């Protein structure tokens, strides 16, 4: 217990001026995103990260140095995930009547997402490292990182896959909702949360607080649920 606290303190202490890169990249990303009135393909991360990477190549800063310098941001991922329980708790009471539907949808959806990714992975790539870095793709970043670590996958790869999954989700979701004629904002939110985690939730909150609450619920429940089934599932499929 004390060990964990020391590790976390060290992680925060390693933060340095390089964190400015992240902040500026984020600020530029947010600025462009707002100017475009929230176009999905101009997500702050898609504008900010190449910009930061370009500067790092130019100034010859290696990734590990940069990543450690951002210790406090990486550390904040934990509290931020916990903080997601706040909007969730506010909306959970009026939702209790819908709980059976929510539970069935999240359980089946979470399982489907992981099985689908692993099966396609087994079919399309010869690299087992990719498959174990892929399984947690629908889960919010901090949970996905822990799960991937336990599965022996790559943590830089899972963050990118999680990010990309989220972006794909918010880009295609509305079109699929149009095709299936799923117009209810609540269920759209839930699906965004289960399939596109925090990125989907940010998008859902832009739609409406209710959509965001359902998305938070989907993301949170799927995160908890996936951390229960993913490791046994991988033993069934890969080992």
């Amino acid at each position, binding site marked *: 217990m004390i060990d964990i606290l020391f590790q976390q303190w060290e992680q925060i202490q390693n933060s340095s001026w390089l964190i400015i890169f992240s902040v500026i*990249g*984020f600020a530029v990303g947010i600025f462009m995103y707002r100017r475009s009135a929230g176009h999905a393909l101009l*997500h702050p*991360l898609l504008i*900010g*990260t*190449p910009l*930061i990477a370009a500067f*790092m190549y130019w100034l010859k800063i290696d*990734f590990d140095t940069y*990543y450690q310098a951002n210790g406090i*941001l*990486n550390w*904040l*991922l934990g509290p*931020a995930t*916990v*903080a997601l*329980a*706040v909007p969730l*708790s*506010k909306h959970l009471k009026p939702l209790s009547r819908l709980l059976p539907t929510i539970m*069935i*949808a999240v359980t*089946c959806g979470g399982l*489907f997402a992981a099985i*689908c*990714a692993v099966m*396609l992975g087994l079919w399309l*790539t010869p*690299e087992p*490292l*990719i498959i174990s870095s*892929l399984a947690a*793709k629908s889960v919010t*970043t901090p949970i996905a990182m822990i799960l991937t670590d336990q599965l022996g996958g790559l943590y*830089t*790869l899972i963050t*990118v*896959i999680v*990010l*990309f*999954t989220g972006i794909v*989700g918010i880009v*295609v979701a509305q079109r699929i*909702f149009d095709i*299936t004629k*799923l117009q*209810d904002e609540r*269920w759209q939110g839930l*699906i965004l949360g*289960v*399939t*596109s985690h925090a*990125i989907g*939730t*940010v998008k859902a909150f832009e739609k409406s607080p209710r959509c965001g609450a359902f998305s938070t619920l989907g993301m*949170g429940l799927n*995160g*908890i649920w996936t951390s229960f089934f993913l490791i046994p599932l991988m033993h069934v499929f890969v080992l």
Partner: protein
Amino acid sequence: MGMLLLLLVLIYPSDLVSLVEPVSSRLIQNLSLLFIPASVGAFFLEQEITSQLPSLLVIVILSTLLTILFMSLLIKLIRRSSDD
């Protein structure tokens, strides 16, 4: 785990929500900032991994698409049978 704990505490009727909400909502609004450091790692991956990126792209797009489709249809099915 922490999320589950906070949820259980906050579900209980009290003023706790109004106490933590100003901080938590600010954190959530700027959530994207926290994903930036790890995402930059995408530009610093090794050769064996980057060579697999095209198939990885296909896997992620297909599985995400299929999952959203599956969930939309599933929810439609459930909601129709319980007609609401």
